């Protein structure tokens, strides 16, 4: 329930954005229409299904399940809202009137036999037609409303004469007035309907501790729903109003109140009988009712006896409207070809592709061995050829699956706008938020994990970096600050920039703080950039006091750690008085990576290829020293070196031997990793590792190689950051 709610919410906000976009462009935007249709057709399909269930039930003998009516009502309501946000007035108006019919039905203002209910089928068909035209770009401003108007006038006719309300049988009930007064019209209707059907009414009073009432109440509700319908749930203060809360559940049931009481064995719970229905339950109220329909059956739509199904479907076909709806269902299927898939299914698929990639490597190794032996060389060559074909197809499969996982950045941008809206209000700062690259795509999983760090960075900018309007005016800037978030692809990476035009970071303050916290010594001379990067260290917050906005205790160090977990890197540029730019560099996907396999002594490691800039052979005498660290002259620039063997305390080749340098790049930083051997490239799937190895810094996970077991994967961002820091500390 909670998940559905939140989903609905995000759909709302995305819709709102899209609608404002469409209006800004002032011409129908086919991309927006497509977005609308792909979301709306799901709702429409559900309405189709629910309506056919409704018809089954209304022609059957049991009561039409109230939840089913509610569900169709909500579908119409959601569709109305969605269409409204996309500026599709005809669809919005149509859904609105259908919602009216369903509202009247669920409140008992019209009966289920009303001709208006038959019109719902036509309404859904008409919606399908409108959406099909929209998707095909055939929608017209004159024709669509005309079609809708014809239909609407039929609705007006059908519900012109509202059925009179039944007399007030609620008056005579032994019910506390506070309970009756808090019943919504819908609940009142349900209460009447249950009375009409001869059900018993009981009041279940239960007191809970305030701190845990939801769990207790939900247990109780589940138990009650097994035997009846909860018409209303009224909270009231408990005997100890500070710490307790009491709930009174008004329950309609077909089982005897005494039996209900004995079934509900809960602490602090009392059951009172309010009204006794006619003996024999629903049969008394409706003589032709099926005896096999238990009380709960009326609650669940699926409780409909199965053997009744086909007969009712036929009954439905008698109506002229049902036949007109049938072909529309066909056309609806072809409106858009969008399918929603659970991300976990994609993960499984991705994993399988990963396994295949590893198997492929094993085949390559076998082919290689066969080729090397002169007796099997021919078959080896054939296998190599087959392997190459397999490899090509596998690459296509891999990129196909990857493509499915990609989602546009727009999703994140929408979340950020919401955050900024809140901040604007809380802090009273006028800040403009601009976005670039909403269509840049990124792995869905990364998008999820990127939200929190980005929200933090934007909050920081809002809270600390941007000055007050007065301060800005005095500095000769426009009074409104601006935060620009851009996303773009660079090679195999996605780069996200958060740029503000605020006061910039106070380098001196950061330095002082770092000295105070013992992160650096007072004698150290650090470059401007090195000082800035200190904000990513734990325990260094430049804000003078903890603010509500930027959160407590969560600093840029957490941002860096989170991003490193995704194989990403965060970098910072700040100019006093001009502003700060935070740059995040992330791999496009984590699922499958190309890795460079390197060897040190007996060990092998995998390095994600997307962070490898180049490799080269280096003779011992080429290695120089600077500030106590080994460096290499790389086309005139000093390249900091790090011996991977020493890093992991593995016995490696001697310092006087020729070695290989793997040049790593992460954001703006460079590091040369010295290894003994380069063993080639492989597609690998990184698996996380558990146990003591997890603790080792510089290891991102493990991967399986086709031929010979597992190797550890180097966490490039940590290795680079550590090495750079050590040089700074030296």
């Amino acid at each position, binding site marked *: *329930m*909670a998940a559905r*709610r*939140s989903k609905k919410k995000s759909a709302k*906000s995305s819709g709102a954005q899209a609608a404002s976009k469409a209006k800004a462009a002032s011409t129908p935007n086919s991309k927006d229409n497509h977005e609308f249709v792909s979301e709306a057709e799901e709702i429409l399909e559900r309405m189709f299904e629910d309506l056919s269930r409704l018809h089954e039930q209304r022609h059957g003998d049991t009561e039409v399940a109230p939840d089913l009516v509610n569900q169709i009502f909500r579908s119409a*309501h959601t569709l109305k809202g969605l269409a409204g946000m996309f500026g599709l007035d005809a669809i919005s108006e149509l859904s609105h009137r259908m919602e009216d019919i369903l*509202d009247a039905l669920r*409140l008992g203002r019209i009966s289920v036999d009303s001709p208006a209910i038959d019109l719902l089928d036509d309404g859904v068909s008409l919606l399908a037609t409108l959406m099909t035209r929209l998707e095909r770009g055939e929608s017209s401003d004159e024709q669509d409303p005309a079609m809708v108007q014809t239909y609407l006038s039929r609705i007006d006719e059908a519900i012109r004469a509202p059925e009179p309300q039944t007399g007030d049988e609620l008056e005579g009930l032994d019910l506390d007035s*506070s309970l009756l*007064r*808090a*019943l*919504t*019209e819908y*609940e*009142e209707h349900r209460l009447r309907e249950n009375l009409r059907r001869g059900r018993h009414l009981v009041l279940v009073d239960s007191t809970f501790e*305030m701190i845990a*009432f*939801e769990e207790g*109440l939900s247990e109780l509700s589940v138990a009650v729903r097994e035997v009846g319908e909860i018409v*209303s*749930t*009224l*909270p*009231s*203060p408990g005997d100890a*109003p*500070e710490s307790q*809360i009491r709930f009174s559940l008004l329950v309609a049931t077909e089982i005897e109140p005494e039996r209900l009481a004995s079934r509900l064995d809960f602490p602090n719970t009392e059951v009172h009988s309010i009204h006794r229905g006619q003996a024999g339950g629903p049969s008394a109220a409706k003589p032709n009712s099926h005896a096999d329909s238990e009380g709960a059956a009326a609650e669940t739509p699926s409780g409909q006896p199965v053997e009744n199904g086909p007969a009712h479907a036929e009954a439905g076909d008698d109506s002229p409207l049902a036949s007109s709806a049938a072909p529309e269902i066909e056309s609806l299927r072809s409106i858009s070809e969008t399918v929603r898939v659970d991300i976990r299914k994609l993960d499984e698929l991705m994993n399988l592709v990963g396994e295949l990639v590893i198997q492929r490597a094993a085949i390559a190794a076998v082919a290689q061995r066969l080729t090397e032996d002169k007796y099997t060389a021919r078959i080896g060559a054939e296998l190599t050829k087959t392997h190459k074909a397999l490899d090509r197809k596998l690459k296509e499969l891999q990129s196909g699956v990857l493509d499915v996982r990609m989602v546009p950045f727009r999703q994140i941008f929408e979340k950020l706008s*919401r955050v900024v*809206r*809140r901040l*604007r*209000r*809380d802090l*009273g700062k006028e800040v403009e938020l601009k976005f670039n690259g909403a269509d840049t795509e990124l792995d869905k999983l990364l998008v999820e994990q990127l939200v929190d760090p980005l929200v933090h960075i934007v909050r920081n900018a809002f809270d600390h970096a941007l000055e007050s309007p007065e301060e800005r005016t005095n500095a000769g800037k426009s009074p409104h600050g601006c935060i620009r978030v851009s996303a773009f692809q660079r090679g195999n990476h996605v780069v996200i920039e958060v740029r503000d035009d605020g006061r910039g970071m106070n380098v001196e303050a950061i330095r002082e703080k770092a000295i105070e916290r013992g992160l650096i010594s007072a004698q150290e001379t650090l470059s401007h950039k090195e000082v800035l990067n200190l904000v990513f260290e734990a325990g260094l917050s430049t804000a003078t006091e903890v603010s509500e906005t930027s959160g407590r205790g969560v600093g840029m160090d957490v941002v860096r750690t989170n991003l490193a977990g995704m194989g990403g890197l965060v970098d910072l540029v700040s100019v006093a008085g001009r502003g700060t730019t935070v740059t995040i560099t992330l791999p496009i996907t984590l699922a499958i990576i190309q890795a460079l396999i390197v060897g040190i002594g007996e060990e092998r490691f995998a390095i994600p290829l997307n962070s490898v800039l180049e490799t080269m052979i280096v003779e011992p005498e080429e290695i120089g020293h600077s500030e106590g660290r080994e460096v290499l002259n790389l086309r005139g620039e000093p390249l900091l070196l790090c011996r991977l063997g020493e890093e992991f305390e593995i016995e490696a080749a001697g310092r006087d031997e020729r070695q290989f340098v793997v040049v790593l790049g992460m954001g703006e930083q460079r590091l040369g990793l010295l290894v003994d051997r380069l063993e080639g490239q492989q597609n690998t799937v990184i698996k996380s590792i558990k146990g003591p190895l997890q603790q080792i810094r510089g290891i991102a996970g493990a991967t399986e190689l086709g031929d010979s077991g597992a190797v550890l994967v180097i966490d490039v961002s940590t290795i680079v950051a550590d090495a750079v820091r050590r040089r700074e500390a030296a």
Partner: protein
Amino acid sequence: MASSLEDLEMPVKIVEAESGFEALRFLPREDFDLVVTDINMPDINGLELVSFIKNNDKYSSIPLVIVSTEGSDRDRDKGLGLGADAYLAKPFDPETLRQVVGDLLSGRPGSG
């Protein structure tokens, strides 16, 4: 709902409850000056929430605004009967909401 209040950009702190139960849990935590509730909510409905607040000595003086989409006159009468101070049927004009909220916060009676 919270976002339409946010859009008013009034100098108030807004705490948003996603459901009636959440509202019940939030009540003791802060000193609320105003409660705005929908009628149709998951778990308990808005009228039930209003009833709870008005029947609890600790909260009964908090001004209450009911906002509802599927507004029926009966629900409106009931809400006001239970002691809600104002009722707004969606869609409402943001200016009306601002006015009602402003009036209630400054102690003047809200318009029904």
